[in-house]
């Protein structure tokens, strides 16, 4: 059967552990900054733009970090993966 060019993963699998730890660390730090901003300001002094930026970057980092964590660990632990 004919085949074409091989398909490569978008992120090399060897980088999963590094990506997962780095992204999760960044995400947790960003989440911490977000919560700090929430408690150190009053509702009159908060700026939505800054809040949105912090929240978005925290959720992107945490989301991607969780994905790579899942990709890295689910196969050895459970035998199959996203």
């Amino acid at each position: 059967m004919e085949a074409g060019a091989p398909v490569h993963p978008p992120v090399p699998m060897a980088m999963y552990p590094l990506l997962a730890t780095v992204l999760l660390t960044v995400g947790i730090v960003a989440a911490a900054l977000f919560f700090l901003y929430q408690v150190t300001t009053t509702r009159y002094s908060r700026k939505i733009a800054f809040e949105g930026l912090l929240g978005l970057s925290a959720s992107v980092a945490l989301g991607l970090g969780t994905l790579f964590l899942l990709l890295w660990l689910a196969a050895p632990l459970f035998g199959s993966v996203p």
Partner: protein
Amino acid sequence: MSRLCTVLVLAACLVASAAAADFVVENASRRINLKNTWAKAIDTLKAKNTGDSDLSNFVVCYPESIASRIAVLKVLIKKEKQEVAPLQQAPQGAPAGVSCYQATFKSAVKKGATVDLDVVATVTGVFKPNPAKIAQGEKQYVEYYDNLYLLSPYEVTEQSSTVLLPTSDVRSFSPQDGGSKSGSKVSYAALGKQGPWAVQQLKVHFHHDKPFKRVNSLVREIEVSHWGNIYVEETYEIQNAGSQHTGKFSRLTYAHSPDGKTNSFPDVKAHLPAAAHSLYYKDIIGNISSSDTTHTSRETLIEVRLRYPLMGGWKTDFTLGYSVPLEGFLYRRPKGKLRLLMDLSTSFDDVWVEQLTTRVVLPEGAKHIKATLPFADIQQSWDKKFTYLDTAGRPVLVLSKSNVVPEQNKPFAVDYSFTFTGMMREPLLLISVFAAFFAAVALYNRLDFTITRDEKWQEGQAHDKALGLIQSLTEYWDREADVLDRLVRLAHSISNRPSADAAPASRQALEAELRPLDEQSKALLSQVEALSPKLAAAARNHGDKSKMLLGRAAKLLSDKSDLIKKDVAAHEASAKLAGATRQLEEAIREWVDEGAKLAQG
């Protein structure tokens, strides 16, 4: 078996004269290979077209008991496969209990010409253990039943049958006359001319020394993840289909003598792809640690030792899983499609599979799924699987086939289309979950659930609002601090007369910058006043301090200019004013910190 015998013999008496008036088999040489745990019958025929025209159809037949267990049937002319299809009804005059197939030749056989063809049939499950039950240590004897002659609608001029056995221990073979046994071969050399549908039961009762490894059911699940891996998980139910074990099982006898093992087997070997990794071997109890894996550059050989040795009739089940990378199995096809190439069946040696189910799980969002299969008798159906991060479920293509032997473990292809955005669905799902959480927190912090809105609450609100305004004020204060810093730097940079002359102008410019800032901060301050006089007073204080600092900075600047104008060297001047400069800088820092503290409330 005796019923087959009767039926065939009875049928033989009703041999119809209407033989197919097309081919005559001039020579049929049958070799029935019983060395494995399945039978392989190779009939080498030389057929002559005695009909009136060119013919391209040829009928081959088998007794029903064998035909129902045929796994592979091939008709080869000069090693080229011809088309074979089962015939719904046996041709005219066939005795009962006969199944036929029709081969369609690629090039027709001319009138009067002869054609050499090979008919190869691989048949499973046709060995009947006799005795059916044996004790541990006894040898396994099986019987094989077939038709002695070539079962054919054509007249056969000359034929011979040879049965190749795995051992030379033959208890009996029938019919006796015409047959001779030499070593592990029973041959009927010259069987003479036979009419069409010549039936005669052939029975060989011999010792089969190989264990019968039968996989009752195999579910092979192949899950493709575009993030980099293909996960294969195979669930087996494997049984020893030889003579059944009866009586006691002694582990001691088993371990210490070869007789204790006879027709049993403790393990199965598999040849997995070389890039296979993360192998696991487990069953419902848990992990099974008795396995050996050898990685070579060409394959990964795994020897899977079952939890207990399978004596005759015993069965067990287990799951074997492994992962392979995408490279070597997933390819790009034109028009944005992808092709997955995997083997259909198990990679274990020496097993045949009664019921094979191959499930191909494609990523969620895969569309236009089409399979190219190596055999026509594979049933396709669809299913859905819900696993990690799935919302709508992953499409599963289910392929089923029964009676599969190792030579049928061929690759099959599944074509589908799957976009990059489809792959991004998973991280986007995770990101949106986290974003929703943060948005909920932000929203919650903006809500006010106070039950009684009394004076104290009002004061608190006013205080908060005032603090908010002061935080905007800090922007102006920062700009003022910046101007102060620049003044100090300007003072520092004066090193000669021309720059000293230019200094006042720069000072004016910097002070001019401060003026609009003052206006705006005044406006804000009045707002703060309305809300909280106390905070307003503190803020005003703070603003006034900056005026004082401005004065000191101006004085420093003029001092430096004067010194330079008096022709004092630049570094001397700097040294003289070093103390004052440092103090001023410290004062500015302190002022900035104070401002920050004020904004925090």
